């Protein structure tokens, strides 16, 4: 998965969650180092390799609210959405 594919996956996920049109979601993306292989966004009961992992921080805004996704070539995760992390 490349950066564009990761952003696309994140936009689709947020559109479904918020029940909005994906075209109405604004995004900004930056390269980032995450603390582990779950990109610092482990789900409950999940264990991850403790290796610094290069990826992308994707910030999506819709309906006046901002949400953070984290991605690398293997995965996309939603970070602290209503207090919880999700693998997308």
């Amino acid at each position, binding site marked *: 998965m490349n950066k564009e594919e990761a952003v696309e996956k994140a936009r689709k996920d947020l559109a479904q969650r918020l029940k909005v049109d994906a075209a109405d979601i604004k995004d900004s993306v930056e390269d980032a180092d995450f603390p582990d292989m779950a990109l610092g966004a482990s789900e409950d*009961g999940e264990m*991850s390799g*403790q290796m610094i992992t290069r990826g992308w921080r994707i910030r999506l805004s819709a309906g006046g609210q901002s949400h953070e996704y984290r991605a690398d070539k293997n995965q996309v995760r939603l970070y602290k959405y209503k207090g919880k992390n999700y693998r997308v």
Partner: protein
Amino acid sequence: MNRNNVVIHLALAVVLILVAAFAGQLNRWRKHWKSQLHIIPAEEKRRATSTTEAIALTDIRGFGRPEVLVKFKSGVSQETIDELTSRMNDRVEDRIENAPGWEAIDDLDNANVNAIIAQYSSIPQVEFVEENYEIKADDSLLPVLPHDPQFGEQWALANSGQRGGKKGADVSATLAWATTTGSDDIVVAVLDSGVDYNHEDLAPNMWTRPDSMPPYQDNELGAIDDVNGFNAIDNASDPMDENGHGTHCAGIIGAEGENDLGIAGVNWHVRIMPLKFMNAGGYGTTKDAIEAINYVIDRKKAGVNVRIISASWGGTQRSRALEEVIRKAYENDILFVAAAGNSSVNNDRNPHYPSSYNVPNVVSVAALDRNDQLAGFSNYGVKSVAVAAPGVDILSTWLGNSYEEKSGTSMATPVVAGVAALVLAEHPHMSVDDLRKKLLASSDPIVALKGKVGSGGRINAAKAVE
């Protein structure tokens, strides 16, 4: 003769004089070396880059070693000395230039050294006689350097100040290797994303289930052909790594040394047991980690000498079941080395599991950079983190016969697991309690670790294997 010819002749004469002087000095050096009681010269030992070679050199030097050093009284001529020694079927092996009157005597009959001393003591022309002791004391302190082509990048093992690092900020592996380079009898379980067991720098050091040992029996699934290890994700036999993380950790512990390929592991020789519980993304479940640890305990009971589990992973959720199975590993004399985590937090206040479990076999590891500073990402905790090891820009094996540099307490953990394996290679019957104590007590105090990790130190392989 014109002016040019004079200059050429003068220059030639100067060169000849210099060559003659150098040759004379070489001869003096040679004689001086011979008089040094036949200790292996440091330069020669350093060229002995494998243990086998070093032993071979030692043997060569040991052959024909003079038995005694004799001091004849002043005024005794060389002819008299030659006559006296020849009468006893001995030979003056060397005159010791820096100690006037002393001769190194080789007894050609290979008689007992005490008898030779008694013989020479009875000769009126002899002032003193003593045994030519073999001096070996410092041999083990000479560094042993492998020929692996990328070893120069392995600052964790030998920090020469490369890429702006601090010289000596390493785990003293090259000194440890003068004592041991590891053992095929020690098995280290790499509990991770599996291992690329076909990697050319790892393949010779991979564990495989002996033919004589029955396959693993899972309570629900029955027999699993664990010839290459165990895959807890699929409850299957193939622990092939699809991520790279486990392969990286395995290389730090035991990439084959002195094989003219890539890197050297902390152990040149060891047996790595691959266990897979994390997927291609590098994450997995607590349940699968527990199953893999149960597998290790089962294999230990079946006769595999697996003494260490290297666990470069973790999370913030406590699991009583995981803690219990790690305690079960302790009861089976297995050390559990675990990553402290990469969130820059104090684990005493914000625990990270499994490294924060208060079980006697757990060694929680923080990460250091190449300047002996706690890595910016590393977790710490004077009560809950035991020791630190290099964990930034660590070069190791990766999927498909490649090599990559990675950072994390994930990388520091197998350094400590590897040193533990070296200790066991030298002290195979050491208990898990003593092994843990040894690792921490032999660490080097580091200013940056004071109040940050329990031992206050960086792991030191050379001191640990003593």
